[in-house]
């Protein structure tokens, strides 16, 4: 390990040690871990959904707290006391900004890790090793909400030399969380598809702060070309991320697959609406790919814990009856396109879990292409088809145990053996 890396890691370590001795942080850490542990314990074996819910709410809560903390922590070297001591040291301005940022990031990642460790331990007796995978995914998702926001708060506070910089970010995020209709969907920091935008914007601001603004203020900016190029690259990435996020949040256009899906209609005894949706792992799942199968089409909201009890049951059915041509297909209705993939990954499901990217809301009645096609008033909804994909059972607003599903499947198999 090079000298500078060892030195900077030690500086970050000392910074984190100092902060963790603060009773407020200890309190936050212990309460978060215990609370998450108890919550996870109460959810039983639903590791995937528990991790997703914790990632959403833990990530948002920690993002707000970290952002506020960064607003104050970013300016610690600006005062006349400790700041004067620190600024008189022979540390390059950019390095100092990055060190301060990295110390805060390490601190908040540790606190967030404590939350997910608590949840993982709480769920370990029920969900077994799946709990480890699920909460690792949850930690990653929460960190991806927290880090860009905290970085934005940090960079803006440093640029403006005021904690108001971070307060502006917190206010904007609170407006988004409050669901103000004027805030476009592509500006939601907590949607997976918007992350390229937020990561790139926060990287841009951090680069501008560290390599341009801080060094200029300290009289160290001798050759601005390279940092300016770095900032330009980050700005280009931010524009690309913004375009991608906006495109992902666009309503379906006429003639598209989404529009065609909307035009279908579910009717008992008639062919069920087909779909063509991404599974979040780079694959597209199509109903047409399962000819001659008995389909269990399950539409659910990502944050519905009742629905989440059915997913492991569907997985069990897939394993038990897969050889006899029974195929579950789960459709996650969420404005966040990453939810379906995260659930499938965290739950270790062997059947496809796809995301309906046209979802705009999941509260009754849900709004998306497939929610319209399946005329869904309440989520979750389960449709059981025969081997010609005709709807034979339409059920809604309930969780299903493996026994209930087994009864449904056995009835179908009795009518249509292989």
């Amino acid at each position, binding site marked *: 390990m090079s000298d500078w890396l060892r030195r900077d890691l030690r500086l970050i370590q*000392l*910074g984190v*040690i100092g902060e963790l*001795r603060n009773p407020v942080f200890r309190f936050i850490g212990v309460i978060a871990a215990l609370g998450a542990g108890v919550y996870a314990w109460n959810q039983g074996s639903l590791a995937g959904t528990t991790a997703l819910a914790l990632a959403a709410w833990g990530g948002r809560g920690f993002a707000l707290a970290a952002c506020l903390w960064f607003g104050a922590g970013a300016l610690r070297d600006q005062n*006349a*006391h400790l700041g004067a001591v620190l600024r008189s*040291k022979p*540390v390059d301005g950019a390095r100092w900004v990055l060190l301060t940022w990295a110390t805060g990031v390490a601190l908040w990642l540790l606190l967030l890790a404590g939350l997910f460790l608590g949840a993982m331990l709480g769920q370990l007796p029920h969900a077994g090793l799946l709990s480890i995978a699920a909460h690792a995914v949850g930690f990653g998702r929460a960190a991806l909400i927290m880090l860009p926001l905290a970085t934005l708060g940090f960079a803006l506070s440093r640029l403006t030399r005021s904690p108001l910089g971070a307060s502006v970010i917190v206010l904007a995020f609170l407006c988004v969380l409050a669901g103000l209709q004027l805030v476009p969907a592509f500006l939601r920091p907590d949607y997976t598809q918007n992350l390229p935008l937020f990561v790139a914007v926060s990287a841009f601001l951090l680069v501008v702060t560290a390599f341009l603004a801080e060094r200029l203020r300290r*009289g*160290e900016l001798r050759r601005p070309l390279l940092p300016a190029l770095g900032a330009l690259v980050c700005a280009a990435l931010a524009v690309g991320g913004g375009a991608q996020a906006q495109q992902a949040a666009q309503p379906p256009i006429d003639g598209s697959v989404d529009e065609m899906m909307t035009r279908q209609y579910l009717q008992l005894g008639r062919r069920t609406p087909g779909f063509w949706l991404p599974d979040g792992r780079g694959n597209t799942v199509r109903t047409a790919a399962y000819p001659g199968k008995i389909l269990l089409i399950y539409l659910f909201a990502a944050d519905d814990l009742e629905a989440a009890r059915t997913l492991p049951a569907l997985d069990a059915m897939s394993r038990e009856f897969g050889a006899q041509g029974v195929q579950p297909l789960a459709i996650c209705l969420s404005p966040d396109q990453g939810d379906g993939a995260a659930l499938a990954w965290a739950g270790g499901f062997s059947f496809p879990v796809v995301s309906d990217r046209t979802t705009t809301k999941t509260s009754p009645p849900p709004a998306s292409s497939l929610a319209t096609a399946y005329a869904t008033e309440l989520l979750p909804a389960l449709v059981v088809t025969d081997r010609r994909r005709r709807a034979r059972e339409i059920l809604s607003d309930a969780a299903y145990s493996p026994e209930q599903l087994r009864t449904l499947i056995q009835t179908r198999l009795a009518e249509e053996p292989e």
Partner: protein
Amino acid sequence: MGVEAVQLTKVYDGKVKALDNVSLAAESGVLGLLGPNGSGKSTLMSIMSTLLDPTHGTILVDGLDVRKNKPEIRRRIGYLPQDVGLYPNLTVFETLDYMGLLYDLNDVRDRRRRIDNCLERLNLVNLRDRQIQALSGGMRQRVALAQAILPQPSVLIVDEPTAGLDPEERIRVRSFFAELARECLVILSTHIVADIEAVSSSLAVLRFGKLLYFGSPVELLHTLEGRVWSLELPPDGVMPQREGFVETGLYRLTDSVQVRGISETAPGAGATPTAPNLEDAYIWLMAKDEHERLAAA
């Protein structure tokens, strides 16, 4: 080695002139900066320690221009600001370790050796593992001093280091500067004249950003030779008001009051000439400047 300020001027926000054409130079020993609050001492120190840029003129630290060689100068100086703050939750050792890393002391053994040396010199060995927030003001000041001398600087800049310390701690810190002055140039800013008198080899007196005096304290005292008087009055006696008499001290004795002051001639019957001290000189410089300002106005 040393510091040289050349026609240094600092104007804040285009309005407030904190330093006005200040020129001084010091090679070794202790350079005392003396002046009332708001005289520009801290601004001068901030410029020396590269935290501020001068509006006009410059300062050379070890021959390096503060405008152009900030990183290199920071490597060579130790800086102890007024009301120093440290990370409250780190221990004394961790604090010094942190500061050592900021000084690019990357070799672990060397850094630890220097820290141990500083702890020993400043009598902090027993406090090594105690958190900063658990230390008294004097102990914290010693830790702050330890971080400033950690890189073995060629110039040590200390701003009001004895403010708020008890007399015993003040004397200890003062003696430490006298000892340090054998190794590096110590620039000591204060408004406590006794601190300067005890250790300074050269002196700069500032008022409203102007340099009123720069030279050795002994030379300054020479200029007052034969002009300092002591006068004993009864407890209810009234000091005769005389043109040109500057009172520099008033001491209550058992059954009388002793008045001390500066005047070209004896201020009254019974006045005896007294050896001048730095406090007399300081007050005289202030009074002279005030008189000149009033005359100019």
